[in-house]
């Protein structure tokens, strides 16, 4: 793992992959598994802006006034760093999703096979409201695949060109492979073939 500081290099540039999915499907676990810094919680981001509005209702739950989302970081080399941004779960923050997805390489949409419905909204967002290439990934909490992937694909009504993979969000190598699937899918979607699929031109 690289150090907590980024390389001091004026040509250092960054890329971003979005980690989406419903509440409790393992987004933070996934970011934490591979990030070289503890996942940063950005609760403060919208608190200030929403406070005067939400405060009108004194009974409102504290958690509804903040955007709980995490992000992490992975230094690829001394001139490239990859950021992983987990999306906030609540649908009311969809403008935030647009902001997070702008300029991203692709998205990994996590799903839990025991509660697929938790990720319906996220999948719907990427199918309907975004052009960002995305891969759907079943997080195997206990390491076991309890359903056939074909059944899951059908239950999620995924179009055939959206890859469906599995991972263990606690495992750094498994998360790295899932992220590789996202990058590879983006290559294919944006008109390039995956390296190794064909001889170099």
């Amino acid at each position, binding site marked *: 793992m690289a150090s907590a500081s980024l390389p001091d290099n004026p040509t250092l540039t960054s890329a*971003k992959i979005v980690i989406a999915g419903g509440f409790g499907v393992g987004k933070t676990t996934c970011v934490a598994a591979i990030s070289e810094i503890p996942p940063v919680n950005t609760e403060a981001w919208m608190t*200030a802006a929403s406070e005067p509005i939400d405060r009108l209702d004194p009974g409102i739950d504290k958690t509804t006034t903040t955007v709980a989302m995490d992000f992490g970081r992975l230094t690829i080399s001394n001139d490239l760093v990859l950021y992983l941004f987990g999306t906030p779960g609540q649908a009311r923050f969809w403008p935030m999703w647009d902001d997070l997805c*702008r300029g991203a390489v692709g998205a990994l949409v996590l799903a839990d096979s025991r509660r697929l419905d938790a990720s319906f909204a996220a999948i719907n967002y990427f199918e309907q409201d975004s052009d960002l290439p995305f891969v759907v990934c079943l997080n195997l909490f206990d390491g076991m695949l309890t359903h056939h992937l074909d059944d899951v694909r059908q239950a999620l009504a995924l179009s055939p060109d959206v890859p469906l993979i599995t991972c263990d969000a606690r495992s750094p190598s498994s998360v790295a492979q899932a992220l*590789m699937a996202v*990058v590879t899918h983006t290559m294919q979607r944006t008109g390039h073939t995956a390296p190794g699929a064909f001889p170099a031109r």
Partner: protein
Amino acid sequence: MAKRHWKVRPYVLTGGRTRTRQQLLVHTLVSVPYYDSVFAAGLLPEQRTLYEHARETRSLAELSAFSGISLGVTRVVVDDLASTDRLLVHAETYESPFDRRLLERLLDGLRKLA
């Protein structure tokens, strides 16, 4: 940083602005090319906090989170500081996030962890 109460509304800090001259994405990197303590002392509190935190290269998201300043305000203040060369907004090396060279480098980096 401890949670702060906004005695000053965000739009006062930004002069009502919400847009920036340049595209500042959540993962856009910023850094202070040469730190100037005299310059820092003359800044408004929010500007100064962001300027100090940017002495280490950071993304806009990190800068906002570590400074305890909302992303929207961070964007506008960073944009202001960057227009005076006091803050460097790192240029995009690649044509787009779908640039094949970028994607291949990401794959190479991730493969080492896979």
